[in-house]
């Protein structure tokens, strides 16, 4: 619990972070940068978990533990995604989103 800060301000912060990530996810043209945006989204939710835990149920640990899980999942997701991106680069020498549209109508 941060003195002088109420939960609304914190949730506003995380919401803004989340939607900045979403905006990046929509607009970035490069797979790596898209992944960065996903990290932002994940972090926003992880932060939400922790902060809500602190503000509403300070004697519980669920939020912290779930954040640990989220971080682990994020790491796993990134590792796999980057492996795929590197393989893609090996195949088509590009990591642009527009070059991966082979499933178009």
């Amino acid at each position, binding site marked *: 619990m941060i003195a002088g800060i109420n939960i609304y301000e914190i949730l506003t912060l995380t919401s803004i972070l989340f939607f900045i990530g*979403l905006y990046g*996810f*929509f607009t*970035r043209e490069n797979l790596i940068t898209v992944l960065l945006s996903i990290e932002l989204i994940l972090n926003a939710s992880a932060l939400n978990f922790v902060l809500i835990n602190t503000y509403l149920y300070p004697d519980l640990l669920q939020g912290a533990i779930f954040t640990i899980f989220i971080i682990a999942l994020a790491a796993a997701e990134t590792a796999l995604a980057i492996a795929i991106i590197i393989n893609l680069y090996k195949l088509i020498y590009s990591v642009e*989103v*527009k070059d*991966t*549209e*082979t499933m178009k*109508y």
Partner: protein
Amino acid sequence: MDFSYTILIPLIPLALFVILGIFSKKIPPSISGWIGSLGLGTSFVLSWYTAYSYFLGGKLNGVYQTFIYKTTWLNFTDKLHIDMGVLIDPISVMMLVVVSTISFMVHLYSRGYMKGDDGYTRFFSYLALFSFSMFGLVLATNLFQMYIFWELVGASSYLLIGYYYTKPSAVAAGKKAFIVTRFADLGFLIGILLISYYSGTFDFQEINSLHGSIITNWAATSFMGLSVITWGLILIYLGAAGKSAMMPFHIWLPDAMEGPTPVSALIHAATMVVAGVYLVARLFPVYYFVENGFALQIVAYVGAISSLVAAIIAITQTDIKRVLAFSTMSQIGYMMLALGVSKYDGHEGLGYMASMFHLFTHAMFKALLFLGAGSVIHIVHSNYLKDMGNLRKHMPITHITFLIASLSIAGFPGFAGFFSKDEILAAAYENNMLIYVSSVLVAGLTAFYIFRLYFGIFWGKDNTYEHTPHESPWSMTIPMLFLAFMSIAGGYIPFSDYISADSIPFKSHLNLPLAAIATSIGFIGIILAYVFYKKENNLPERFANSFGVFYKWTYHKFYFDEIYLFVTKKILFGIVGFSAAWFDKHIVDGTMVGIGNTTVAISEKIKGWQSGKFQDYAMSFVGGGVVIAMVVFYIWIN
């Protein structure tokens, strides 16, 4: 007395079928023939033993008892359950004897006849399957079990007719038999449902024992002037007519001769085709008592007409197997009419007894005729009368046995056919003069065409053959000799001591005046045949020409096939089918195609949305989520 061992009689062929069917590629032909014959031999011995013990000891207070051993097979509800079991009563025991005897003989015969055939083992497995089904049919305790085996019999008949499946005509014949009998069986099935619905049971015994009181109740529910139960019986008779090749449904039987000759002997002469007769006999009390036997009269008239028409057609056919096929049809018509004119009690039930008697003797001599024909065909390699002639010296045993069978079917005194036919004629005479006259006429025609055949094959012109004809091997002649013996001795069995409509034995005696009339008519037929066909001459042609159109009609079997083709092709396919097709094509298909075209048109417009960019999809997803959230919140606020 315990007859539960009779369950083995069908089960042995079933085991044979399974073994021979599964290992048909593994078992060498020499062994499979022996296995089949041995198995059927066991059934044969068991059947005769059953007959011996039943007819000597099955009476209680002068009435033959019915023994039933059954188990509930499918239990739907307390009331609706389907049983499986064996029913031992005079006619089933008689049928057991017939089926097992003919089947055993045919097995023995086939070992010689089918020698060297590719599907030898397959043939025996089919035969075993047929035997199993036929035994099951005969021993059925209830309508449903009978129906099951009825269809199994049809299926194995289909398999055996189409045995030479590389031959298009055989395949077509198999299909024809299957479709026609299937069509008739539809009536049978509906009949079963009607009868069972109103009687509340499938069980033969219960249905038959209901005849006194309940039938009047049944009669109350009427449809088109007839009670529902009469309709049910007529429908059941439809099935019987299909199986037994009665008039409208007889067209499959001549074509069924495409199958191997032993099969014709077994299935299409002696056993399966009399299943219809057996079915009517099995339900005889119901037939007799419902609405004063209206359905039974139909049976009688259909039988009489069939027998007459078939006899006429048989005269002109040149394929010897077809002649025999029409002869079979004619004789079954005899049995049917005998049942039809029969009454129930005591001596009045003479027709019933005569029918069964004739069934028995006919099975023997007709199977023998077929086996003889098979023997001839085996040597001549042709089915046609014109390719035969003067074979009596080359094939003495075949000649003699064929002659015995011919005399028997012609009703020559002293032979089996004489006795049974006499009983039928007597029954007809006592009850229906019209039918009697027709029957006498048929007797004469029968004598004529069978001796036409006999003289055509064994006398007449001296044909040149590819190789010198010789007598068939012992494996074929021994069954023939046995059946020849039965064709004579069968007539001396006191049938009325054993079989009657009400299971009470009575005394029957030869009706001499009637026998004399029939015999003289038969003589006329034989003499005519002798004149026409003993030596090669032009008499038959002149005779045929004098009949003109009638001869042509007869030769073409009264255009029955053509009528059927016209009805199916022109009316069903042409008018009904065409309009149905139009509807299907323009309305049903049109709707579907319209839906498809609309979808295609819409998707052409919107396919650009599928850009292949996952971000676009995510945007649509989030946009949808936002919209839904807005709607939900809007509703929530208000």
